[in-house]
């Protein structure tokens, strides 16, 4: 599937997704919103962890910043566009400030260093803004799902576009080399640190946007909830499940994840975390390439067999 046919399919898919609010409301649209939110969330992590190879455990910090800043700007009367931009800018600036020191950490220290930073932010936010944030009565009265859904679609499409660009651009090639071997990258002229920082900031900005969509969507939440490490964990889970460093793995996995959650939640709220946690461990151990790679390996096996027969 290449070239024009692929583009046509993607355009068609986007068209159908964009038309969903016309066709349905309520639970289907809510589910659609959640899938798209998680696509954006996972893809924003995938850009850094999958394409950049930097396993950050502090992703929630940027999601949270986007959510809280967007929410506050919006509730204090700024236009939504301004509020979302402000959330993204906050996450981007934080990306520079946090990325620059943590990316110098080696081995496991980058992972646990980013986790520490995110926890510092979460605790600070819970201290400074302990109150739950609830929509005002007029905002509640005019609440509509469709625009939220469309925003989530936009964030998902944008982050997937960014992931795709990483397979098509000079920067993306340089990043792949940095991910696989920094010494080689430096030897051919790639500034490894700058590439890592750039992708860290890019990932933070996308996480900030996704957080902003969440902040605009939710009727009421505690600010610290947007900084919960669960956002990081969900992003990792989905990305690894779908396949790190692939464009279509995370969206596919996000849909499967939420379908699972929907079905299993009927029985027990926690069950989907359990099932997914186990699947995640199995994927990490057995299929480091994720769902997509496993599928490709299986179907390649089948093709080879049919050729032989």
């Amino acid at each position, binding site marked *: 599937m290449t070239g024009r046919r692929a583009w046509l399919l993607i355009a068609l898919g986007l068209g159908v997704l964009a038309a969903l609010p016309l066709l349905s409301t309520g639970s289907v649209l809510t589910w659609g919103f959640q899938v798209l939110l998680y696509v954006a969330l996972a893809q924003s992590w995938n850009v850094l962890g999958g394409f950049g190879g930097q396993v950050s455990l502090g992703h929630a910090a940027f999601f949270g910043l986007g959510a809280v800043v967007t929410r506050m700007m919006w509730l204090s009367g700024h236009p939504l566009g301004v509020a979302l931009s402000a959330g993204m800018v906050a996450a981007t600036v934080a990306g520079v400030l946090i990325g620059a020191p943590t990316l110098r950490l080696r081995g496991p220290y980058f992972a646990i260093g980013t986790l520490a930073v995110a926890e510092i932010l979460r605790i600070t936010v819970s201290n400074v803004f302990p109150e739950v944030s609830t929509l005002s009565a007029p905002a509640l009265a005019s609440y509509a799902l469709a625009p939220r859904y469309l925003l989530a679609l936009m964030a998902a499409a944008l982050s997937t576009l960014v992931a795709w660009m990483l397979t098509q651009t000079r920067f993306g090639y340089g990043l792949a080399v940095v991910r696989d071997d920094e010494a080689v990258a430096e030897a051919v002229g790639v500034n*490894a640190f700058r590439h890592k920082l750039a992708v860290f900031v890019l990932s933070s900005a996308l996480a900030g946007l996704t957080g902003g969509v969440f902040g605009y969507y939710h009727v009421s939440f505690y600010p610290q909830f947007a900084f919960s490490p669960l956002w990081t964990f969900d992003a990792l889970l989905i990305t690894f499940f779908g396949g790190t460093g692939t464009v279509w793995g995370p969206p596919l996995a996000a849909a499967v994840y939420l379908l699972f959650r929907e079905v299993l939640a009927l029985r027990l709220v926690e069950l989907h975390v359990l099932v997914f946690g186990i699947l995640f461990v199995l994927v990490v151990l057995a299929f480091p390439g994720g769902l997509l790679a496993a599928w490709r390996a299986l179907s390649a096996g089948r093709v080879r067999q049919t050729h032989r027969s």
Partner: protein
Amino acid sequence: MLLEVEGLTKTFGGLLAVSRVSFRVASEEVVGLLGPNGSGKTTLLNLIAGALHPDAGQVRLDNRDITALPANARARLGIARTFQLVRTLPKLSVLDNVLVGRLYGRDGSGLEAARTESLSLIASVGLRDKAQSPASQLTLTDQKRVELARALATRPKVLLLDEPLGGLNLTEVRAAVAMLRQVRTSGVTVVVVEHNVQAVRALCDRLIVFNYGQTVVEGGPDEVLAHPAVIEAYLGKSSGSNLAAFS
């Protein structure tokens, strides 16, 4: 002078790996570095390429002091290298391995042009049919070709080769020497670390012999290889023809 190294010194902990080494390489010259294992040859290449920074001394390219520059900046100025233990990127295709060199190296090209140029480089090292295979599937000698193509893709002024023939069998060595001859005629300046004396004799204009991080002898291949100190120290009295046997 194209490349000048002056008083380079590097220690690891208490170990003096490279000690006050100075030499010059003229444009289009091919210089061979010889010396027993552990004598500091790889460290010296790392210092020139910028993978390591010296404790003292200078590296100059085209009369410009580049000692403070990081490796990536030196690569863009025209210093390319291969690694003693081959370092292809196993998950990427042969084409993508070479492509990054063309994209980021000296006067890097746009994506389309880079692709075409990389393919022709890949063909020139004899891997035309394998351009799309993942590098992990290649034999050692083919991986060394990929590394060579990747280094050449940066359009280097100076090419640093660390034991390009190491680990190859006789047929492969012959093919590789022929390929390096081609590189030589194309006008790239080369600094090559190699134990294979016949190959060194065939390829190099000048040899520098190291021991314990210091220059021992320097001169034309015949002169150096006949030097008593060299024969004694590295070839043994019986004067075997292949240094590799003693390393």
